[in-house]
């Protein structure tokens, strides 16, 4: 009976591997989460400052909830808000304050194409920057540059700050710190272009400063000290934070769900293999809870070391994920890594709870093992699913179909949110109804197998149908892997494809002026417009807007992509306006995509927050279809420019075939591209966004495949006796293996078909929602790779142990 021991060992090796992987994945998501919660941009220029006073970091709103108390929601402010310089006087009055500098920043391009940050010389003391040569600027045309710009003191240089390039005399250089250009405070304020305002009021102090007194002096403004000072310098980390929190939570959630499915399947299998042992225990006097307790204890014995090792490994895995995402620009530079034991502990606890939960569910079955079964020759599998499982499974199918209904009846974020619910509820339903699906697959696919191969095909069909519970445990992770991989990858590609298509279809420009640096000054569009042959030139400024958007019946604050578009936008872009006119977009107006318009129409008033957190009300002048290609909000150019970190434009759309090279040449870093090249640049950007989902698919997909392989190897290894019996009654080795191949084809085929069906339904719903047509963008190569990546290892895990068990030369005997 040593085979029994091995069998149990095999199951627990599988459970160990699955739990270890789950803990590692959950923990690494925890590392990302903790980093996101603690992350601040590095403090570079404000190193010597005691406190930094800036505009609001986030917008907040109370959103009504039907039958519930209002929910407080916040979104980060992505563009740098301004503060009035006048507030500096109140700060100076606070005891302990040595000085207050009204700090301004603006992009400066050198004639060599280097991009540095421009400030007043009074800001230099905040880091502090120290002169390595020369002297401070004293006149409006004097400048101190970082040595990294490569221009020594005493030379002349052409700098572009705000408008067109102008000559400056370099009076001195600073050695360390991020690249900077220092002008006289008056010149800097003029170049900054917002009289009476500053990016931040930076407080220096002699000793300890009363933070409370500072806050009281400037109500409504944010006072940052310590590491938080970095977020005033660079808002990228702050802005990325909620997205990374969401990402970490959703990957972690999928990892937990996967662990439940995989470990649940393994434990169900192991329990089934040990039905006779449990029945014997019951016969000699073990109560159902004693048997359940034994199973739970055994799970703990495996789970605790697995979760411990996985938890420790997760710290390394999380750090690796973080550095990969930084390296591929999926995270802003300066997004620091926070490592503490917390994620490892959380991963440990979550994994143990998940393992115990699955073991408990599997052990409930034990109560249905009647002690009588110990007396029988074989522990027959119960013929029917327990009622609770059937009912819960059907409920999840109904929930899924309901989500499908919602997603096809609506569009935009509501639809996208319901698509996520759709795939999850269908996968849970598959896990619950697995044995039923297995039986169905065995009936349908088995008929084909029996037709194709009368002897071994029929044997395979019989085996796949007889052990529906075992087949259910196997096909669920297969379906999960396929459904998850396909929806994750192809939802991304469907949206990217639609975005690309909308941007390309809606682009009426012949040429586009783009910038390699921080952007194009306002003069570029005007200069292009004056070129003979140009009929329209529209400056475009990308920004974001925060707006309450209805999702599944509830309003949530969301950060939406927005574009500030200048004159004659209607001539250079076609966002497919369905009502109103784009030409009316000026002053306090806005155009909305139909995805976010929800109830608003031309003439009504939209309430939202601009990029810098300014709350505005604007009259809707147009509703358009192409929200993916043009962003969900179109603003007048002046509005977008006034409420962004810089007033520079991202690109200029030009109608007309005139030669624009002289215009571009006047601005450092500017380039003219035709519309095809512009489209390609957009594609590259979208591919980069796809990287994160690729990482997610690789991590979760790898996990599921490990689960599938261990489950299958275990299930096949436990059938030594069955194979030996087949050989004894006269089946040849070849026939047994062929039967097993047919069985693999039937069971895996059912899993593949189920997974593909879930993915297809989900993707059709998604495509319907984002493009209005049921045409998801599915790459055949990627789809084939996913299918092969799941089916290949699964088939190998089923067939290889059987080959080893049925050794060629040995005569058959029962173990």
């Amino acid at each position, binding site marked *: 009976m040593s085979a029994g021991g091995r069998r149990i060992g095999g199951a627990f090796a599988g459970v160990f591997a699955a739990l270890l992987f789950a803990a590692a994945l959950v923990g690494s998501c925890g590392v990302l989460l903790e980093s996101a919660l603690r992350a601040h941009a590095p403090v570079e220029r404000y190193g010597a400052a005691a406190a930094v006073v800036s505009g609001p970091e986030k917008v907040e709103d109370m959103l009504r909830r039907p039958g519930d108390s209002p929910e407080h929601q916040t979104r980060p402010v992505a563009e740098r808000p301004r503060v009035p310089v006048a507030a500096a006087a109140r700060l100076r009055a606070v005891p302990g304050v040595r000085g207050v500098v009204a700090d301004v920043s603006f992009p400066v391009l050198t004639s060599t194409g280097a991009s540095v940050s421009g400030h007043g010389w009074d800001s230099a003391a905040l880091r502090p920057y120290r002169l390595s040569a020369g002297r401070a600027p004293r006149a409006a045309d004097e400048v101190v540059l970082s040595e990294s710009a490569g221009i020594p003191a005493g030379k002349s240089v052409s700098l572009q700050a705000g408008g067109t390039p102008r000559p400056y005399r370099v009076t001195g250089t600073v050695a360390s710190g991020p690249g900077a250009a220092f002008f006289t405070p008056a010149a800097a304020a003029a170049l900054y272009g917002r009289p009476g305002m500053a990016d931040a009021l930076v407080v220096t102090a002699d000793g300890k400063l009363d933070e409370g007194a500072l806050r009281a002096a400037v109500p409504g403004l944010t006072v940052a000290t310590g590491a938080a000072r970095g977020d005033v310098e660079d808002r990228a980390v702050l802005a990325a934070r909620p997205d990374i929190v969401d990402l970490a939570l959703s990957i972690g959630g999928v990892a937990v769900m996967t662990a439940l499915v995989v470990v649940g399947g393994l434990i169900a299998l192991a329990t089934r293999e040990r039905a006779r042992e449990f029945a*014997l225990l019951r016969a*000699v*006097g073990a109560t159902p809870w004693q048997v359940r307790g034994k199973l739970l204890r055994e799970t703990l014995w495996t789970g605790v070391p697995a979760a411990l090792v996985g938890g420790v490994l997760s710290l390394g895995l999380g750090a690796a994920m973080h550095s990969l995402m930084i390296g591929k620009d999926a995270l802003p530079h300066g997004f620091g890594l926070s490592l503490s034991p917390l994620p490892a502990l959380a991963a440990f606890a979550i994994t143990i709870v998940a393992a115990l939960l699955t073991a408990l569910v599997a052990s409930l079955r034990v109560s249905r093992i009647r002690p009588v079964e110990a007396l029988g020759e074989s522990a027959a599998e119960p013929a029917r699913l327990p009622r609770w499982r059937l009912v819960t499974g059907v409920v999840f199918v109904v929930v899924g179909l309901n989500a499908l209904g919602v997603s096809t009846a609506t569009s935009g974020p509501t639809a996208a949110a319901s698509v996520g619910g759709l795939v999850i509820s269908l996968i849970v339903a598959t896990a619950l109804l697995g044995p039923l699906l297995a039986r169905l697959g065995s009936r349908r696919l088995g008929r084909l197998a029996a037709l194709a191969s009368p002897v071994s095909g029929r044997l395979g069909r019989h085996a796949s149908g007889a052990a529906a519970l075992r087949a259910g445990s196997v096909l669920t992770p297969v379906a999960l892997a396929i459904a998850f991989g396909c929806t994750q990858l192809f939802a991304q590609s469907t949206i990217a494809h639609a975005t690309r298509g909308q941007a390309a279809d809606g682009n009426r420009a012949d040429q586009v002026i783009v910038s390699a640096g921080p952007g194009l000054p306002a003069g570029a569009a005007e200069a292009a417009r004056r070129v003979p042959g140009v009929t329209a030139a529209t400056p475009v400024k990308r920004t974001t807007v925060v707006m309450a958007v209805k999702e599944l019946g509830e309003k949530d604050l969301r950060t939406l992509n927005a574009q500030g578009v200048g004159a004659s936008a209607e001539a250079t872009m076609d966002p497919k306006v369905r009502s109103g006119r784009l030409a009316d977009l000026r002053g306090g107006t806005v155009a909305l995509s139909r995805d976010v318009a929800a109830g608003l129409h031309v003439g009504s008033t939209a309430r939202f927050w601009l990029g810098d957190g300014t709350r505005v009300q604007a009259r809707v002048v147009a509703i358009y279809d192409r929200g993916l290609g043009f962003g969900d909000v179109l603003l007048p150019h002046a509005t977008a420019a006034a409420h962004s970190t810089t007033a520079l434009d991202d690109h200029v759309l030009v109608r007309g075939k005139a030669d624009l090279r002289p215009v571009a040449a006047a601005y450092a870093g500017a380039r003219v591209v035709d519309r095809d090249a512009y489209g390609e640049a957009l594609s590259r950007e979208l591919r980069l966004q796809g990287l994160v989902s690729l990482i997610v698919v690789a991590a979760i997909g790898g996990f599921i495949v490990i689960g599938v392989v261990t489950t299958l190897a275990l299930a096949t290894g436990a059938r030594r006796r069955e194979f030996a019996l087949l050989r004894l009654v006269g089946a040849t080795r070849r026939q047994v293996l062929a039967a097993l191949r047919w069985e693999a084809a039937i069971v895996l085929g059912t899993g593949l078909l189920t997974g593909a069906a879930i993915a297809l339904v989900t993707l059709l719903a998604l495509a319907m929602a984002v493009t209005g047509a049921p045409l998801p963008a599915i790459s055949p190569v990627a789809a084939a790779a996913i299918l092969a990546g799941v089916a290949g290892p699964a088939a190998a895990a089923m067939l290889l142990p059987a080959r080893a068990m049925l050794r060629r030369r040995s005569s058959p005997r029962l173990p």
Partner: protein
Amino acid sequence: MTTMTAEATAVAVSLESVTKDYGDVRALDGVSWAFPRGGFTAVMGPSGSGKSTFLHCASGLDRPSAGAVRIGGTDIGRLSETRRTRLRRERIGFVFQAFNLIPSMDVEQNITLPLQLAGTKADPGRVAEVARRVGLADRLRHRPSELSGGQQQRVALARALVTRPEVVFADEPTGALDPRTARDVLRLLREAVDLAGQTLVLVTHDPMAAAWADSVLFLSRGRIVDEMTSPTVQGVMSRWESL
């Protein structure tokens, strides 16, 4: 009341109009019987006669579809699964035909398993005595896989006896053994009745085994069709052939 008390002391297990259905199949059809305390009863019948079902119901492993089963006066049909298990653990011992022992436990652990499940400490003297009685005193550290079939069955018997149960149910305990080993096991069963005063119910289709009993019940199509007291191998065989 007096009759009840008298019955409770004289009768170890009683079945009153017990019927058991498996779906459409009626395995037991209104069977009534009282097993006397300290008696050795064999139950015989051809395959499909319902003798295994009879044993499952009489021992409280299974619940009858109709009728009552009393073990020491307690109607087990009214008990929950857990209470029923406790009652079995305290009052009933089992010996099965095959797969009797937990492979990963040694002989002593297998013998003391019911005590361990009940949460009581095994009395070392009791364990040693039971092991000596079945002739396995020197095998306590062996695993089941290291024992012969007869030895394994004697371990199962020791496990059934260790809790001093009122009734021991044995289901074809000699079915997988050679005649000589079978005789050794049957002798041990007989001793449990004669020396320890235990009640024994033996389900078998082997006339040789049945001949060791005080009386033999014959089952056919879910009913008790005959009883034979002081059985002989010859008598049982001829009655068997007429079934």
